[in-house]
Protein backbone atom coordinates (compact mmCIF):
# COMPACT_ATOMS: atom_id res chain seq x y z
CA UNK A 1 0.00 0.00 0.00
CA UNK A 2 2.85 2.37 0.83
CA UNK A 3 4.32 3.77 -2.35
CA UNK A 4 8.02 4.67 -2.61
CA UNK A 5 7.12 8.27 -3.39
CA UNK A 6 4.69 8.80 -0.52
CA UNK A 7 6.82 11.26 1.45
CA UNK A 8 7.55 13.26 -1.68
CA UNK A 9 3.81 13.35 -2.33
CA UNK A 10 3.55 15.81 0.54
CA UNK A 11 5.22 18.31 -1.83
CA UNK A 12 6.53 20.39 1.01
CA UNK A 13 10.27 20.11 1.68
CA UNK A 14 10.22 22.22 4.84
CA UNK A 15 7.44 20.10 6.29
CA UNK A 16 9.26 16.88 5.42
CA UNK A 17 12.47 18.19 7.00
CA UNK A 18 10.58 19.06 10.17
CA UNK A 19 8.96 15.65 10.30
CA UNK A 20 12.26 13.87 9.73
CA UNK A 21 13.79 15.89 12.57
CA UNK A 22 10.95 14.85 14.91
CA UNK A 23 11.49 11.20 14.08
CA UNK A 24 15.27 11.54 14.49
CA UNK A 25 14.83 13.11 17.95
CA UNK A 26 12.47 10.38 19.10
CA UNK A 27 13.89 7.53 21.18
CA UNK A 28 12.10 5.09 18.86
CA UNK A 29 10.75 6.13 15.42
CA UNK A 30 7.23 4.79 16.13
CA UNK A 31 7.01 6.95 19.26
CA UNK A 32 7.16 10.06 17.07
CA UNK A 33 3.80 9.20 15.48
CA UNK A 34 1.72 11.46 17.73
CA UNK A 35 3.79 14.51 16.93
CA UNK A 36 4.06 13.58 13.26
CA UNK A 37 0.27 13.35 12.98
CA UNK A 38 -0.16 16.64 14.87
CA UNK A 39 2.25 18.46 12.56
CA UNK A 40 0.71 16.94 9.44
CA UNK A 41 -2.81 17.76 10.58
CA UNK A 42 -1.87 21.30 11.37
CA UNK A 43 -0.21 21.71 7.96
CA UNK A 44 -2.89 20.00 5.87
CA UNK A 45 -6.05 20.48 7.93
CA UNK A 46 -6.63 16.76 8.32
CA UNK A 47 -4.89 13.45 7.79
CA UNK A 48 -5.61 12.64 4.16
CA UNK A 49 -4.31 9.47 2.51
CA UNK A 50 -1.11 11.17 1.40
CA UNK A 51 -0.39 12.34 4.94
CA UNK A 52 -1.27 8.94 6.34
CA UNK A 53 1.15 7.11 4.05
CA UNK A 54 3.88 9.66 4.69
CA UNK A 55 3.40 9.34 8.46
CA UNK A 56 3.66 5.57 8.12
CA UNK A 57 6.82 5.70 6.08
CA UNK A 58 8.49 8.25 8.33
CA UNK A 59 7.83 6.29 11.52
CA UNK A 60 8.26 2.79 10.13
CA UNK A 61 4.67 1.87 11.00
CA UNK A 62 2.44 0.22 8.44
CA UNK A 63 -0.26 2.43 6.89
CA UNK A 64 -2.81 0.12 8.53
CA UNK A 65 -1.28 0.77 11.99
CA UNK A 66 -1.45 4.50 11.39
CA UNK A 67 -5.06 4.15 10.27
CA UNK A 68 -5.77 2.29 13.52
CA UNK A 69 -4.29 5.17 15.49
CA UNK A 70 -6.24 7.76 13.50
CA UNK A 71 -9.54 6.03 14.18
CA UNK A 72 -8.72 5.51 17.86
CA UNK A 73 -7.57 8.96 18.90
CA UNK A 74 -10.30 11.57 18.99
CA UNK A 75 -8.20 14.61 18.09
CA UNK A 76 -7.04 13.13 14.79
CA UNK A 77 -9.21 14.14 11.85
CA UNK A 78 -9.41 11.78 8.87
CA UNK A 79 -11.86 13.94 6.95
CA UNK A 80 -11.73 17.56 5.83
CA UNK A 81 -13.14 20.14 8.21
CA UNK A 82 -14.16 23.74 7.88
CA UNK A 83 -11.50 26.42 8.42
CA UNK A 84 -12.49 26.46 12.08
CA UNK A 85 -13.33 23.52 14.31
CA UNK A 86 -15.64 23.98 17.29
CA UNK A 87 -15.45 21.16 19.81
CA UNK A 88 -18.32 21.57 22.22
CA UNK A 89 -18.06 19.83 25.58
CA UNK A 90 -21.11 17.74 26.47
CA UNK A 91 -19.83 16.15 29.68
CA UNK A 92 -21.58 16.51 33.01
CA UNK A 93 -20.71 20.05 34.17
CA UNK A 94 -21.33 21.52 30.72
CA UNK A 95 -24.39 19.32 30.26
CA UNK A 96 -25.95 20.80 33.41
CA UNK A 97 -25.06 24.30 32.24
CA UNK A 98 -26.89 23.93 28.92
CA UNK A 99 -24.32 22.36 26.58
CA UNK A 100 -27.11 20.84 24.51
CA UNK A 101 -28.45 24.30 23.66
CA UNK A 102 -24.96 25.48 22.71
CA UNK A 103 -24.42 22.41 20.55
CA UNK A 104 -27.80 22.85 18.86
CA UNK A 105 -27.19 26.53 18.20
CA UNK A 106 -23.79 25.86 16.62
CA UNK A 107 -25.15 22.96 14.58
CA UNK A 108 -28.12 25.00 13.34
CA UNK A 109 -25.75 27.80 12.38
CA UNK A 110 -23.50 25.40 10.47
CA UNK A 111 -26.59 24.11 8.65
CA UNK A 112 -25.11 20.63 8.37
CA UNK A 113 -24.77 17.51 10.51
CA UNK A 114 -22.27 17.38 13.36
CA UNK A 115 -18.80 16.70 12.00
CA UNK A 116 -19.64 17.95 8.50
CA UNK A 117 -18.32 21.09 6.80
CA UNK A 118 -20.72 24.05 6.73
CA UNK A 119 -21.76 25.34 3.32
CA UNK A 120 -19.62 28.44 3.88
CA UNK A 121 -16.64 26.15 4.34
CA UNK A 122 -15.85 27.98 7.56
CA UNK A 123 -17.08 25.67 10.27
CA UNK A 124 -17.19 22.13 11.60
CA UNK A 125 -19.00 21.44 14.88
CA UNK A 126 -18.08 18.36 16.90
CA UNK A 127 -19.34 17.29 20.32
CA UNK A 128 -16.41 16.57 22.61
CA UNK A 129 -15.59 15.08 26.01
CA UNK A 130 -14.78 17.13 29.08
CA UNK A 131 -12.18 19.79 28.26
CA UNK A 132 -11.33 20.60 31.86
CA UNK A 133 -13.26 23.85 32.05
CA UNK A 134 -15.94 22.51 34.39
CA UNK A 135 -15.77 25.69 36.49
CA UNK A 136 -16.52 27.76 33.38
CA UNK A 137 -19.33 25.68 31.90
CA UNK A 138 -20.61 25.46 29.25
CA UNK A 139 -17.28 25.47 27.48
CA UNK A 140 -15.80 24.68 24.10
CA UNK A 141 -12.57 24.56 22.13
CA UNK A 142 -12.22 26.91 19.17
CA UNK A 143 -9.39 25.66 16.96
CA UNK A 144 -7.94 24.11 20.11
CA UNK A 145 -8.27 27.22 22.32
CA UNK A 146 -10.48 26.87 25.39
CA UNK A 147 -13.41 29.23 25.84
CA UNK A 148 -16.05 29.41 28.57
CA UNK A 149 -18.58 30.06 29.82
CA UNK A 150 -20.46 30.50 26.57
CA UNK A 151 -24.08 31.58 26.22
CA UNK A 152 -26.43 32.14 23.28
CA UNK A 153 -25.25 35.70 22.76
CA UNK A 154 -21.51 35.08 23.04
CA UNK A 155 -21.80 32.05 20.76
CA UNK A 156 -23.68 34.13 18.17
CA UNK A 157 -20.81 36.61 18.28
CA UNK A 158 -18.17 33.90 18.11
CA UNK A 159 -19.84 32.25 15.10
CA UNK A 160 -19.99 35.58 13.27
CA UNK A 161 -16.29 36.18 13.99
CA UNK A 162 -15.37 32.72 12.76
CA UNK A 163 -17.37 33.24 9.56
CA UNK A 164 -15.44 36.48 9.00
CA UNK A 165 -12.11 34.95 10.05
CA UNK A 166 -11.60 37.64 12.65
CA UNK A 167 -11.73 35.57 15.83
CA UNK A 168 -8.65 35.66 18.02
CA UNK A 169 -8.04 33.89 21.33
CA UNK A 170 -8.18 36.35 24.23
Amino acid sequence: MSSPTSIADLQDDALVARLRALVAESLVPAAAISEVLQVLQSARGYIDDVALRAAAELTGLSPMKVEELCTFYSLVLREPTGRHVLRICDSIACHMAGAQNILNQARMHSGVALGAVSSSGQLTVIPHVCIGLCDRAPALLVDGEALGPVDHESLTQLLAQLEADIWKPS
Partner: protein
Amino acid sequence: MEAVLSRNFSAPDPADLALYQSGGGYAGLRRAITMSPAEIIDEVEKSGLRGCGGAGFPTGLKWRLRGLDAPEPRYLVCNLDETEPGSIKDRALLFGAPHHIIEGMLIAAHALGVRYAVIFVRGEYAAGARVLEKALQRARAAGLLRLPDGELRLDIHISLGRYICGEDSAILNAIEGKRANPRKKPPHISQQGLWQQPTTVNNAESIAHLPGILAQGADWFRALGVNGGVGSKLYSVCGPARRPGVFELPMGTTAAEILFEHAGGLQEGRRLRGVLPGGSSTPFLLPEHFDTPMHFDAVAKVGSRLGTGGFILLDDQQCPVDFLVATTRFFARESCGFCTPCREGLPYVRWLLERIEAGTGALEDIETLRALGGQIAPNSFCALAPGALMPVLSGLHAFNDDFLAHVRLGHCPYQEGRS
Protein backbone atom coordinates in the same frame (compact mmCIF):
# COMPACT_ATOMS: atom_id res chain seq x y z
CA MET B 1 -2.81 27.59 55.13
CA GLU B 2 0.01 28.98 53.02
CA ALA B 3 -0.45 28.52 49.27
CA VAL B 4 2.04 25.87 48.16
CA LEU B 5 0.99 24.54 44.77
CA SER B 6 -1.20 27.51 43.96
CA ARG B 7 1.14 30.33 44.97
CA ASN B 8 1.71 31.48 41.38
CA PHE B 9 -1.71 30.57 39.94
CA SER B 10 -2.64 34.19 39.31
CA ALA B 11 0.84 35.46 38.41
CA PRO B 12 1.12 37.16 35.01
CA ASP B 13 3.69 34.55 33.92
CA PRO B 14 3.75 31.40 36.05
CA ALA B 15 6.55 30.06 33.80
CA ASP B 16 8.83 32.84 35.10
CA LEU B 17 11.83 31.07 36.62
CA ALA B 18 12.94 33.98 38.81
CA LEU B 19 9.44 34.28 40.24
CA TYR B 20 9.37 30.58 41.09
CA GLN B 21 12.83 30.71 42.63
CA SER B 22 11.98 33.78 44.70
CA GLY B 23 9.27 31.70 46.38
CA GLY B 24 11.74 28.95 47.26
CA GLY B 25 11.54 27.13 43.94
CA TYR B 26 14.24 24.57 43.10
CA ALA B 27 15.41 24.51 46.75
CA GLY B 28 13.86 21.03 47.01
CA LEU B 29 15.89 19.87 44.03
CA ARG B 30 19.06 21.39 45.50
CA ARG B 31 18.53 19.38 48.66
CA ALA B 32 17.50 16.25 46.77
CA ILE B 33 20.72 16.05 44.77
CA THR B 34 22.72 16.00 47.99
CA MET B 35 20.70 12.95 49.11
CA SER B 36 20.85 9.35 47.99
CA PRO B 37 17.84 7.88 46.16
CA ALA B 38 17.03 5.78 49.22
CA GLU B 39 17.03 8.86 51.44
CA ILE B 40 14.66 10.71 49.09
CA ILE B 41 12.31 7.74 48.94
CA ASP B 42 12.37 7.60 52.77
CA GLU B 43 11.47 11.28 52.95
CA VAL B 44 8.59 10.90 50.48
CA GLU B 45 7.30 7.84 52.35
CA LYS B 46 7.47 9.69 55.65
CA SER B 47 5.54 12.59 54.14
CA GLY B 48 2.51 10.36 53.64
CA LEU B 49 2.01 11.67 50.08
CA ARG B 50 -0.55 9.57 48.22
CA GLY B 51 -1.27 9.46 44.51
CA CYS B 52 -3.46 12.38 43.52
CA GLY B 53 -4.69 10.84 40.26
CA GLY B 54 -7.49 9.23 42.20
CA ALA B 55 -6.27 5.89 43.51
CA GLY B 56 -4.38 7.28 46.50
CA PHE B 57 -1.56 4.74 46.42
CA PRO B 58 1.35 5.93 48.61
CA THR B 59 3.88 7.59 46.29
CA GLY B 60 6.98 6.64 48.28
CA LEU B 61 5.87 3.02 48.47
CA LYS B 62 5.25 2.95 44.72
CA TRP B 63 8.82 4.10 44.21
CA ARG B 64 10.22 1.63 46.74
CA LEU B 65 8.35 -1.28 45.17
CA ARG B 66 9.94 -0.55 41.79
CA GLY B 67 13.26 -1.33 43.47
CA LEU B 68 16.40 0.76 43.70
CA ASP B 69 18.24 -1.87 41.66
CA ALA B 70 15.66 -2.15 38.86
CA PRO B 71 17.29 -2.87 35.48
CA GLU B 72 18.27 0.14 33.40
CA PRO B 73 17.08 2.06 31.54
CA ARG B 74 14.19 3.06 33.79
CA TYR B 75 11.53 5.53 32.82
CA LEU B 76 9.34 8.08 34.55
CA VAL B 77 6.03 9.48 33.30
CA CYS B 78 4.05 12.38 34.69
CA ASN B 79 0.37 11.76 34.04
CA LEU B 80 -1.28 15.03 33.04
CA ASP B 81 -3.99 13.41 30.95
CA GLU B 82 -6.74 14.74 33.19
CA THR B 83 -9.94 13.97 31.28
CA GLU B 84 -12.22 12.88 34.09
CA PRO B 85 -15.31 15.12 33.99
CA GLY B 86 -15.35 17.42 37.01
CA SER B 87 -11.57 17.24 37.46
CA ILE B 88 -9.78 20.47 36.68
CA LYS B 89 -6.89 20.59 39.16
CA ASP B 90 -4.13 19.36 36.83
CA ARG B 91 -5.14 21.96 34.28
CA ALA B 92 -4.66 24.59 37.00
CA LEU B 93 -1.19 23.18 37.74
CA LEU B 94 -0.23 23.06 34.08
CA PHE B 95 -1.10 26.72 33.51
CA GLY B 96 -0.23 27.99 36.98
CA ALA B 97 2.56 25.84 38.40
CA PRO B 98 4.69 24.51 35.54
CA HIS B 99 7.94 24.78 37.52
CA HIS B 100 6.45 22.75 40.38
CA ILE B 101 5.90 19.95 37.86
CA ILE B 102 9.37 20.25 36.33
CA GLU B 103 11.15 20.42 39.70
CA GLY B 104 9.09 17.48 40.93
CA MET B 105 10.06 15.47 37.85
CA LEU B 106 13.74 16.23 38.46
CA ILE B 107 13.49 15.13 42.10
CA ALA B 108 11.63 11.94 41.11
CA ALA B 109 14.11 11.24 38.29
CA HIS B 110 17.02 11.50 40.71
CA ALA B 111 15.30 9.30 43.29
CA LEU B 112 14.44 6.67 40.69
CA GLY B 113 17.68 6.78 38.71
CA VAL B 114 15.90 7.84 35.54
CA ARG B 115 17.55 9.53 32.54
CA TYR B 116 14.46 9.81 30.33
CA ALA B 117 11.14 11.15 31.52
CA VAL B 118 7.94 12.24 29.82
CA ILE B 119 5.22 14.66 30.88
CA PHE B 120 2.09 13.37 29.16
CA VAL B 121 -0.35 16.23 28.54
CA ARG B 122 -3.81 15.73 27.05
CA GLY B 123 -4.21 17.31 23.62
CA GLU B 124 -7.08 19.49 24.79
CA TYR B 125 -4.56 21.22 27.08
CA ALA B 126 -2.14 22.09 24.26
CA ALA B 127 -2.21 25.77 25.26
CA GLY B 128 -1.10 24.74 28.76
CA ALA B 129 1.62 22.55 27.30
CA ARG B 130 3.04 25.70 25.71
CA VAL B 131 3.31 27.28 29.19
CA LEU B 132 5.04 24.15 30.44
CA GLU B 133 7.38 24.14 27.42
CA LYS B 134 8.35 27.75 28.14
CA ALA B 135 9.12 26.90 31.76
CA LEU B 136 11.07 23.83 30.68
CA GLN B 137 13.21 25.82 28.25
CA ARG B 138 14.05 28.28 31.02
CA ALA B 139 14.89 25.52 33.49
CA ARG B 140 17.06 23.78 30.90
CA ALA B 141 18.86 27.01 30.00
CA ALA B 142 19.59 27.56 33.69
CA GLY B 143 21.24 24.13 33.85
CA LEU B 144 18.62 22.75 36.22
CA LEU B 145 18.14 19.53 34.26
CA ARG B 146 21.71 18.45 35.03
CA LEU B 147 21.40 15.78 37.71
CA PRO B 148 24.35 14.07 39.43
CA ASP B 149 24.14 11.13 37.01
CA GLY B 150 23.84 13.28 33.89
CA GLU B 151 21.32 15.53 32.19
CA LEU B 152 17.69 14.40 32.34
CA ARG B 153 15.95 14.20 29.02
CA LEU B 154 12.49 15.53 29.80
CA ASP B 155 9.98 15.43 26.95
CA ILE B 156 6.47 16.83 26.77
CA HIS B 157 4.13 14.44 24.96
CA ILE B 158 0.95 16.06 23.72
CA SER B 159 -1.71 13.40 23.47
CA LEU B 160 -4.02 12.78 20.52
CA GLY B 161 -7.00 12.43 22.87
CA ARG B 162 -9.05 9.75 24.71
CA TYR B 163 -9.72 9.40 28.44
CA ILE B 164 -8.22 5.91 28.58
CA CYS B 165 -4.75 7.39 28.05
CA GLY B 166 -4.84 8.29 31.75
CA GLU B 167 -4.73 4.62 32.74
CA ASP B 168 -1.17 3.91 33.83
CA SER B 169 -0.38 1.22 31.27
CA ALA B 170 -2.47 2.67 28.43
CA ILE B 171 -0.46 5.88 28.77
CA LEU B 172 2.68 3.89 27.98
CA ASN B 173 1.13 2.44 24.83
CA ALA B 174 0.19 5.97 23.78
CA ILE B 175 3.77 7.17 24.28
CA GLU B 176 5.13 4.20 22.33
CA GLY B 177 2.91 5.08 19.37
CA LYS B 178 0.26 2.41 19.84
CA ARG B 179 -3.45 2.45 20.54
CA ALA B 180 -3.94 3.33 24.19
CA ASN B 181 -5.48 0.06 25.36
CA PRO B 182 -4.62 -0.89 28.94
CA ARG B 183 -2.12 -3.73 29.30
CA LYS B 184 -2.61 -6.98 31.12
CA LYS B 185 -1.09 -6.96 34.61
CA PRO B 186 1.05 -8.67 35.74
CA PRO B 187 3.70 -7.83 34.80
CA HIS B 188 3.26 -4.54 36.59
CA ILE B 189 4.58 -1.48 34.78
CA SER B 190 7.15 -1.02 37.56
CA GLN B 191 8.78 -4.18 36.20
CA GLN B 192 7.84 -3.97 32.51
CA GLY B 193 6.50 -0.61 31.46
CA LEU B 194 7.63 1.73 28.73
CA TRP B 195 9.43 -0.36 26.11
CA GLN B 196 9.21 -3.22 28.62
CA GLN B 197 11.52 -1.42 31.05
CA PRO B 198 10.82 -0.49 34.69
CA THR B 199 8.54 2.53 34.65
CA THR B 200 6.96 4.79 37.23
CA VAL B 201 3.84 6.79 36.43
CA ASN B 202 2.79 9.57 38.83
CA ASN B 203 -0.03 12.08 38.63
CA ALA B 204 0.92 15.72 38.05
CA GLU B 205 -0.32 16.87 41.46
CA SER B 206 1.68 14.14 43.22
CA ILE B 207 4.76 15.27 41.29
CA ALA B 208 4.08 18.94 42.08
CA HIS B 209 4.09 18.21 45.82
CA LEU B 210 7.66 16.87 45.75
CA PRO B 211 9.52 20.23 45.71
CA GLY B 212 7.83 21.31 48.94
CA ILE B 213 8.39 17.95 50.64
CA LEU B 214 12.09 17.98 49.76
CA ALA B 215 12.64 21.65 50.56
CA GLN B 216 10.80 21.76 53.85
CA GLY B 217 10.68 18.17 54.96
CA ALA B 218 8.13 15.43 55.51
CA ASP B 219 7.00 16.81 58.86
CA TRP B 220 6.21 20.20 57.39
CA PHE B 221 4.14 18.53 54.66
CA ARG B 222 2.24 16.30 57.07
CA ALA B 223 1.40 19.28 59.25
CA LEU B 224 -0.34 21.04 56.35
CA GLY B 225 -3.22 18.56 56.62
CA VAL B 226 -6.16 18.65 59.03
CA ASN B 227 -8.61 16.10 60.47
CA GLY B 228 -6.30 13.18 59.78
CA GLY B 229 -5.25 14.26 56.29
CA VAL B 230 -1.67 15.04 55.31
CA GLY B 231 -0.37 17.79 53.04
CA SER B 232 -2.34 20.21 50.96
CA LYS B 233 -4.82 19.28 48.27
CA LEU B 234 -6.24 20.91 45.17
CA TYR B 235 -9.99 20.50 45.50
CA SER B 236 -12.31 21.78 42.83
CA VAL B 237 -16.02 22.49 42.60
CA CYS B 238 -18.23 22.62 39.52
CA GLY B 239 -21.97 22.73 38.94
CA PRO B 240 -24.45 25.26 40.37
CA ALA B 241 -22.12 26.74 43.02
CA ARG B 242 -21.75 30.48 43.54
CA ARG B 243 -17.97 30.33 43.09
CA PRO B 244 -16.93 27.23 41.16
CA GLY B 245 -13.16 26.82 40.86
CA VAL B 246 -9.99 25.22 42.19
CA PHE B 247 -9.02 25.64 45.86
CA GLU B 248 -5.79 24.61 47.54
CA LEU B 249 -6.74 23.62 51.09
CA PRO B 250 -5.45 21.39 53.85
CA MET B 251 -6.03 17.74 52.96
CA GLY B 252 -8.87 16.67 55.24
CA THR B 253 -10.92 19.85 54.94
CA THR B 254 -14.55 18.82 55.29
CA ALA B 255 -16.83 18.62 52.28
CA ALA B 256 -19.11 21.21 53.92
CA GLU B 257 -16.30 23.74 54.25
CA ILE B 258 -15.18 23.24 50.63
CA LEU B 259 -18.72 23.51 49.29
CA PHE B 260 -20.24 26.21 51.45
CA GLU B 261 -17.27 28.40 52.38
CA HIS B 262 -14.76 28.19 49.56
CA ALA B 263 -17.20 27.59 46.70
CA GLY B 264 -19.72 29.94 48.31
CA GLY B 265 -22.58 27.48 48.56
CA LEU B 266 -25.28 27.09 45.96
CA GLN B 267 -26.75 29.64 43.65
CA GLU B 268 -29.89 31.41 44.90
CA GLY B 269 -32.92 29.20 45.39
CA ARG B 270 -31.18 25.87 44.98
CA ARG B 271 -30.75 23.03 47.42
CA LEU B 272 -27.88 20.56 47.27
CA ARG B 273 -28.92 16.90 47.05
CA GLY B 274 -25.51 15.29 46.72
CA VAL B 275 -22.09 15.51 45.13
CA LEU B 276 -19.73 13.29 43.23
CA PRO B 277 -16.70 14.21 45.34
CA GLY B 278 -13.82 13.10 43.16
CA GLY B 279 -14.77 13.36 39.51
CA SER B 280 -17.48 11.48 37.66
CA SER B 281 -16.23 7.99 38.54
CA THR B 282 -16.94 8.25 42.26
CA PRO B 283 -20.07 7.31 44.21
CA PHE B 284 -22.40 10.04 45.48
CA LEU B 285 -21.61 11.68 48.80
CA LEU B 286 -24.89 12.75 50.41
CA PRO B 287 -25.59 15.72 52.71
CA GLU B 288 -25.55 13.56 55.86
CA HIS B 289 -21.85 12.96 55.13
CA PHE B 290 -20.82 16.52 54.30
CA ASP B 291 -18.97 16.75 57.62
CA THR B 292 -16.55 14.10 56.32
CA PRO B 293 -12.89 15.18 56.15
CA MET B 294 -11.96 14.95 52.48
CA HIS B 295 -9.00 12.60 52.64
CA PHE B 296 -8.73 9.13 51.15
CA ASP B 297 -9.52 7.03 54.23
CA ALA B 298 -12.33 9.16 55.65
CA VAL B 299 -14.18 9.36 52.32
CA ALA B 300 -13.82 5.60 51.81
CA LYS B 301 -15.35 5.03 55.24
CA VAL B 302 -18.59 6.70 54.19
CA GLY B 303 -18.81 4.69 50.98
CA SER B 304 -17.39 7.06 48.41
CA ARG B 305 -13.94 7.91 47.04
CA LEU B 306 -11.76 11.01 47.24
CA GLY B 307 -10.75 10.39 43.61
CA THR B 308 -9.38 13.60 42.14
CA GLY B 309 -11.07 15.86 44.71
CA GLY B 310 -13.18 17.35 41.91
CA PHE B 311 -16.71 17.94 43.28
CA ILE B 312 -19.65 17.81 40.89
CA LEU B 313 -22.81 19.22 42.45
CA LEU B 314 -26.29 17.79 42.01
CA ASP B 315 -28.98 20.23 43.12
CA ASP B 316 -32.75 19.98 43.40
CA GLN B 317 -33.37 21.54 39.98
CA GLN B 318 -31.28 18.94 38.15
CA CYS B 319 -32.82 15.56 37.39
CA PRO B 320 -30.54 12.84 38.80
CA VAL B 321 -31.46 10.47 35.97
CA ASP B 322 -30.47 13.06 33.39
CA PHE B 323 -27.29 13.71 35.41
CA LEU B 324 -26.39 10.02 35.15
CA VAL B 325 -27.20 9.95 31.43
CA ALA B 326 -24.50 12.60 31.00
CA THR B 327 -21.89 10.88 33.16
CA THR B 328 -22.55 7.52 31.47
CA ARG B 329 -22.51 9.00 27.96
CA PHE B 330 -18.95 10.11 28.63
CA PHE B 331 -17.73 6.68 29.75
CA ALA B 332 -19.61 4.80 27.03
CA ARG B 333 -17.96 7.01 24.43
CA GLU B 334 -14.53 6.79 26.02
CA SER B 335 -14.45 3.02 26.47
CA CYS B 336 -11.37 1.91 24.55
CA GLY B 337 -13.36 -0.98 23.11
CA PHE B 338 -10.90 -3.67 24.12
CA CYS B 339 -13.15 -5.69 26.43
CA THR B 340 -16.75 -6.60 25.76
CA PRO B 341 -18.37 -5.86 29.15
CA CYS B 342 -17.24 -2.23 28.94
CA ARG B 343 -17.63 -1.72 25.18
CA GLU B 344 -21.11 -3.24 25.01
CA GLY B 345 -22.24 -2.83 28.60
CA LEU B 346 -21.79 0.90 29.06
CA PRO B 347 -23.83 1.88 25.96
CA TYR B 348 -26.56 -0.45 27.25
CA VAL B 349 -26.50 1.27 30.66
CA ARG B 350 -26.67 4.66 28.93
CA TRP B 351 -29.59 3.49 26.76
CA LEU B 352 -31.53 2.23 29.78
CA LEU B 353 -30.96 5.54 31.58
CA GLU B 354 -32.05 7.47 28.50
CA ARG B 355 -35.20 5.37 28.27
CA ILE B 356 -36.08 6.07 31.89
CA GLU B 357 -35.29 9.77 31.50
CA ALA B 358 -37.50 9.93 28.38
CA GLY B 359 -40.40 8.42 30.34
CA THR B 360 -40.50 5.19 28.35
CA GLY B 361 -38.71 3.09 30.93
CA ALA B 362 -40.22 0.25 32.93
CA LEU B 363 -39.59 -0.93 36.49
CA GLU B 364 -37.62 -3.85 35.06
CA ASP B 365 -35.19 -1.38 33.51
CA ILE B 366 -34.24 -0.16 36.97
CA GLU B 367 -33.63 -3.74 38.07
CA THR B 368 -31.63 -4.42 34.92
CA LEU B 369 -29.45 -1.42 35.68
CA ARG B 370 -28.74 -2.77 39.16
CA ALA B 371 -27.98 -6.21 37.80
CA LEU B 372 -25.67 -4.84 35.10
CA GLY B 373 -23.66 -3.13 37.81
CA GLY B 374 -22.79 -6.51 39.24
CA GLN B 375 -22.03 -8.01 35.84
CA ILE B 376 -20.01 -5.35 34.05
CA ALA B 377 -17.65 -4.13 36.75
CA PRO B 378 -16.11 -7.41 37.90
CA ASN B 379 -15.71 -8.69 34.34
CA SER B 380 -14.10 -5.70 32.68
CA PHE B 381 -10.40 -5.38 31.97
CA CYS B 382 -9.53 -2.09 33.67
CA ALA B 383 -11.01 0.44 36.07
CA LEU B 384 -12.95 2.47 33.47
CA ALA B 385 -16.23 0.55 33.60
CA PRO B 386 -16.24 0.05 37.39
CA GLY B 387 -15.68 3.79 37.73
CA ALA B 388 -18.45 4.57 35.27
CA LEU B 389 -20.89 2.49 37.31
CA MET B 390 -20.09 4.02 40.70
CA PRO B 391 -22.29 7.10 40.30
CA VAL B 392 -25.00 5.03 38.57
CA LEU B 393 -25.28 2.39 41.29
CA SER B 394 -25.03 4.85 44.17
CA GLY B 395 -27.46 7.16 42.33
CA LEU B 396 -29.98 4.33 41.89
CA HIS B 397 -29.86 3.86 45.64
CA ALA B 398 -29.84 7.49 46.74
CA PHE B 399 -32.40 8.76 44.23
CA ASN B 400 -34.60 5.69 43.92
CA ASP B 401 -37.78 7.78 44.27
CA ASP B 402 -36.78 9.87 41.28
CA PHE B 403 -36.27 6.78 39.14
CA LEU B 404 -39.65 5.41 40.20
CA ALA B 405 -41.35 8.75 39.49
CA HIS B 406 -40.08 8.74 35.89
CA VAL B 407 -41.53 5.29 35.33
CA ARG B 408 -44.81 6.05 37.10
CA LEU B 409 -45.41 9.40 35.40
CA GLY B 410 -44.13 8.39 31.99
CA HIS B 411 -42.04 11.55 31.80
CA CYS B 412 -39.27 13.37 33.64
CA PRO B 413 -40.78 15.24 36.60
CA TYR B 414 -38.05 17.87 36.32
CA GLN B 415 -39.28 18.80 32.85
CA GLU B 416 -42.75 19.78 34.13
CA GLY B 417 -43.43 23.42 33.46
CA ARG B 418 -40.35 23.79 31.28
CA SER B 419 -40.55 24.51 27.60
